[in-house]
C-alpha cells in the first residue's frame, strides 16, 4: 500500500500511509485507539472502495482497485473483523459457504459442502460437528470457523482485527499457532492487536501508526524489538498545551466502590468486571485507562443503575453510607450521572430539540404535579446554551442538526442539569474536533472545581494525563494500577493496561 490518504468529513483518518507486507510473513500493525489501523484495513479490503481514498494498492505486483469486499476476496485478501460476521442460527457448514455455496444445476450441493467443511475444519484444528449451530460454539471456536471460511476462499493475505481480544489464554495460543501454521503454507497475515506480547511472539515485522501516519516499520528479529520499543513508537507524540490548569482543591473521599464484580449479560462464566475497588474524592478528576474491551464502560454502566451486565457482588459507598443503585433513576437520585461513550445511540434522542434533551434526565426539576413548565425549560436550556457555548441559533433546534462537539455539550448540559455529585464521562471527546475538545476539558475542570467528583474514561492517554488528577488502569476487567497523574506517563500506563502483573497501590 503506497501513500494511502483517507479523509472523513473534518478528519484526516489516514495521511500518506505506506505499508509493505512481504509474501508469507506475519505483519502486525500497532497504534493507539484512533491511530487509523482499522481504517487502513478497510481500505485494503475494499470496504472503502477505490476512488474514496488517495494512493494505490499493489498486490502481487499489480495495482489493485477493489470495488467492494467481493473483489478483494476474489484477489485473495480476506479480512476477519473484531465483531465476527457469522450468523448464529446457521450451522458451521452453512456459515463457511455463505455467499459462496457449491452448486449443482443451481441447487446447493450440501453433500459436497459438508465434505469440504470437514476438510477445512481439520485444517484449523476444530473437531466440532459441521452441523453444529454457531451460537453453541465459544468465541474461540467461532474465530476458527471464520478462518476456515477464509481458507475456503483460497486466501493469500489474511487480515485479523483484534483476533484474540475476546479469547482466553488457551484459545489465543491456539489461534496464534494456527496463524503461524498458515504462514508455513504461504499465507501472509496482517494482525492488529493491542496485546503486545502476542505481537512480539509471532510477528516478523511491525508497522506503527500514529495519528493516521505510518511512523516506522520494524523488523522484529533484526531490530530486536520488545514491548517497550513498540510502546515508545506508539505514544511518541508531543503533548500540546491544550489542557486547562488543575485549579480544584481535592477534598475528602466521598465515593467508594468495593469489590465490584459483574457478569457478562449472556455468558455467565465471563466476568467483565472483576473484584474492582476504587475511590473518588470531591473535586477530583479520576481517569480510567484501559484498552477497548478492558471493561471500563462495563464498570461504569454497571455502577450506573446496573444498566449493563448481571450484578454479582460489590458495594458502593457515598459519604460513608452504603447506597443501592438498582436502576438508573435510583442512580440519578443518589447523585450519579453518566455521559455515555456513544452519544448518538445511548446519549441523545436525535428526534428531540436541545431544550427537550437538556431537561430529559431530571424532568422533576421543572414539573409541578408532573406538568412541565415550558417557560422554565426554555430558560434552563437557554442558560446552558450560553454558558457551554453550544453553537445553535435557538434551543428549539433539533439536536440532529448539531455537530458532534455541540451534541456532546448538550449531553453534558443534560447531566449537569441533574446536579450530580459524581459525573462519569465515558469517552467524552470521541469523534469531536480539537477546539471543542479543549472546551470540554475546561467544562470538566470547572465541574471538579465546583466540588464534584469526576470519573473520566478515555482511550486517549494524553487526554487522561492532561485532565485527570489520578489514574486507574484496567486490564481484562480488573484494576491493575493506581497512580497520580504527575507520576504517570504513557509508557507506565500502557504497561499496566496490557498486563495484569503490576500490583495495585492502595489509594
Amino acid at each position: 500500500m503506497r501513500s494511502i490518504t483517507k479523509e472523513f468529513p473534518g478528519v484526516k483518518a489516514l495521511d500518506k500511509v505506506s505499508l509493505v507486507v512481504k509474501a508469507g510473513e506475519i505483519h502486525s500493525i500497532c497504534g493507539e485507539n484512533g491511530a487509523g489501523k482499522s481504517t487502513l484495513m478497510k481500505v485494503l479490503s475494499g470496504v472503502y472502495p477505490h476512488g474514496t481514498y488517495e494512493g494505490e494498492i499493489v498486490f502481487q505486483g499489480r495495482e489493485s482497485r477493489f470495488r467492494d469486499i467481493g473483489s478483494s476476496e476474489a484477489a485473495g485478501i480476506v479480512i476477519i473483523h473484531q465483531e465476527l460476521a457469522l450468523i448464529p442460527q446457521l450451522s458451521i457448514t452453512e456459515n463457511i459457504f455463505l455467499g459462496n455455496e457449491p452448486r449443482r444445476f443451481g441447487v446447493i450441493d450440501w453433500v459436497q459442502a459438508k465434505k469440504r467443511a470437514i476438510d477445512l475444519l481439520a485444517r484449523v484444528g476444530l473437531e466440532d460437528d459441521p452441523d453444529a449451530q454457531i451460537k453453541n460454539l465459544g468465541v474461540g471456536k467461532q474465530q476458527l470457523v471464520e478462518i476456515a471460511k477464509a481458507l475456503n476462499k483460497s486466501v493469500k493475505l489474511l487480515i485479523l482485527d483484534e483476533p484474540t481480544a475476546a479469547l482466553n489464554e488457551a484459545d489465543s495460543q491456539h489461534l496464534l499457532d494456527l496463524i503461524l501454521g498458515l504462514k508455513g503454507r504461504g499465507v501472509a497475515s496482517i494482525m492488529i492487536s493491542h496485546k503486545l506480547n502476542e505481537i512480539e511472539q509471532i510477528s516478523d515485522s511491525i508497522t506503527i501508526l500514529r495519528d493516521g501516519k505510518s511512523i516506522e516499520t520494524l523488523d522484529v528479529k533484526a531490530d530486536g524489538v520488545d514491548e517497550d520499543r513498540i510502546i515508545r513508537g506508539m505514544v511518541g507524540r508531543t503533548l500540546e498545551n491544550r489542557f486547562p490548569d488543575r485549579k480544584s482543591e481535592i477534598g475528602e473521599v466521598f465515593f467508594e466502590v468495593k469489590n465490584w464484580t459483574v457478569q457478562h449479560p449472556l455468558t455467565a462464566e465471563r466476568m467483565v468486571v472483576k473484584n474492582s475497588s476504587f475511590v473518588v474524592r470531591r473535586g477530583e478528576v479520576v481517569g480510567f485507562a484501559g484498552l477497548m474491551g478492558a471493561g471500563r464502560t462495563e464498570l461504569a454502566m454497571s455502577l450506573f443503575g446496573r444498566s449493563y451486565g448481571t450484578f454479582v457482588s460489590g458495594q458502593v459507598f457515598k459519604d460513608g453510607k452504603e447506597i443501592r443503585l438498582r436502576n438508573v433513576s435510583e442512580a440519578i437520585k443518589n447523585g450519579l450521572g453518566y455521559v455515555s461513550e456513544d452519544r448518538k445511540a445511548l446519549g441523545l434522542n436525535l428526534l428531540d430539540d436541545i431544550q427537550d434533551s437538556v431537561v430529559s434526565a431530571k424532568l422533576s426539576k421543572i414539573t409541578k404535579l408532573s406538568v412541565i413548565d415550558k417557560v422554565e425549560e426554555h430558560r434552563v436550556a437557554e442558560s446552558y446554551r450560553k454558558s457551554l457555548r453550544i453553537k445553535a441559533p435557538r434551543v428549539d433546534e433539533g439536536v440532529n442538526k448539531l455537530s458532534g462537539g455541540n451534541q456532546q455539550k448538550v449531553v453534558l448540559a443534560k447531566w449537569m442539569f441533574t446536579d450530580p455529585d459524581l459525573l462519569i464521562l465515558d469517552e467524552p471527546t470521541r469523534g469531536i474536533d480539537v477546539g471543542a475538545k479543549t472546551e470540554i476539558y475546561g467544562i470538566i475542570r470547572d465541574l471538579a472545581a465546583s466540588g464534584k467528583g469526576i470519573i473520566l474514561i478515555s482511550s486517549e492517554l494524553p487526554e487522561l494525563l492532561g485532565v485527570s488528577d489520578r489514574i486507574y488502569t484496567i486490564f481484562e476487567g480488573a484494576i491493575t494500577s493506581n497512580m497520580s497523574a504527575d507520576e504517570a506517563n504513557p509508557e507506565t500506563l500502557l504497561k499496566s493496561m496490557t498486563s495484569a502483573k503490576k500490583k495495585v497501590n492502595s489509594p
Partner: protein
Amino acid sequence: MSATPEAPKTGFQLRDLGKMFGSGSNGRQVGILGALVVIIVFFQVFTNGLTLDPTNLINLVNQNAYVLILAIGMVMVIIAGHIDLSVGSIAAFVGIIVATSMASWHFPPAVAILLGIVIGVIIGAWQGWWVAYVGVPAFIVTLAGMLIFRGANQFFGNSTSVTVPDAFTYIGGGFIPDFGPSTLYSNGTLLLGLLVAVVIVVQEWRARRTQTEMGSQKAPLWVSGVKVVVLEAIVVSATLLFAGGRAGTSFPVSGIILGVLVLVYSFITRNTTFGRHVYAVGGNWHAAELSGVKIKRINFFVMMNMSVLASVAGMIGVARAGASGPNDGVGWELDAIAAVFIGGAAVAGGIGTIVGSIIGGLVIAVLNNGLQLLGVGIDRVQIIKGLVLLIAVGVDVYSKKQGRPSLTAILMRGPRSSQGGDASAPIERPSIAPTNSAEESSRPKSTTPN
C-alpha cells in the same frame, strides 16, 4: 445549521404564515391540514354543497367519532414504537358486555359505562403486561388480542345482536340539548361555539405572552391576527351549520366526547412527564433508559390507555347503532392506524401528534363521505383510501431522504434557495428497533474503529 442570525422580519414572509400553526417543526401537520381543506372544497363543489350540509356534517361526526377516539390512543402507541391491532375486537367485546349488562342485568346506563371502562382497564393491563414485562412484541400480543376478543364477543353474545335502551344511545347519537328562548338555531350549540371562540382568542394571547417570557422570536402581530380571524371564521360557520340543521339536531354528543379527549390527551402528550417519556421511549429507548425513564412502566400504560380508549369507542359505536353485534368494530384498528400515519407519525416511533392524527382521520372521513355522496362504490372508495395512505407516507419518507422536513414544509417555506442556509441534515436515527432482543442490548455500544 444556520450560523448567521436571521434577518429581521419585515413585511410579508411565507415562513411567518407557517408560524400560524406553531414553530417550523410541525410543517407536516400544516400540509395535511391543507390537504383536508382542499378535499373539503373539492367535494363541496362536486356534491353541489351537500358536503357542508348540516345533516351530512352531523353524520360525519357521528360516523367517525369512535375511529378518531381510537386514533388518539393509537398515536401514543405508535409514538412509543408499538402497534395495536386489537382495538376493534376490544371495542366489540366491551360493547357486547355493556349492552348485555343493560338488556339482561338491567344496569343503569351510567353503571354500564363504568363497567365498560373497567373492562377496558383490565384488558389493557393484560396486554400491557405481555408487551412491557414479558417482552412479547406488541404486534403479536395485539394480534392475539384481536382473535381473543373477537371470539369472546361472539362467544358471549352467541353471535347475535343485543339491543341497548334508548337512554344509552345518547352518547352515540344524541345532541347538545336546546334551551332558553326559541331561536332559529340550537342555543346549546351556539353557547358551545361562543365558548370555543373565546378560548381561541385567549389561547393565542397566552401563547404570545409565553413567547415574550421566553424571549424567543415572535411571529409578527398580523400573523396572530390572521390566524385568529381564520379560526374564528371556521368556528362561527361550523357553529351556525351545526346549530341550524333540522329541528331537534345540533352538535352531536359523540363530538363533544371526542373534543374533550383531544384536549386532554394533547395536554398529556405535550405538557406532562408521561407524555415526554412516551416520545423518549419511541425516539431512542436506550437513551431514555439511561436517563432514568422507566421504560416498562411507560409501555404498560401506553398499551393500557389504548384499550381504555377502545372501550370508550366501542360503547359510542354501540350507542350509535342501537345494538351490539358480532361484527362490530371490524377494521377499526386499520382505520385508526391509517389516520395516525396520514397524520405524520413515524413508523419507527418517536414522532407523531394527537392533532395530526385527528386531521389524518378527518381526511379519511371526508374522503369516505364525499365519495359516497358522489355515488362511488365502496370498492373504489377502498382503493382510493389505500392510495391516499401510501402517497401521504411516501411523500413523507421521500422528503426525509432528501433531507428536507417534508414536501408541504417546502411549499410553506418557498424554494430551497431562499431558505438562507436552513438546509437541514437528514434525520439520523440510531439503527435500533425498539423491539430488540436481550442480545442486542447485552453489550455497550462501541462502534468506532480501533
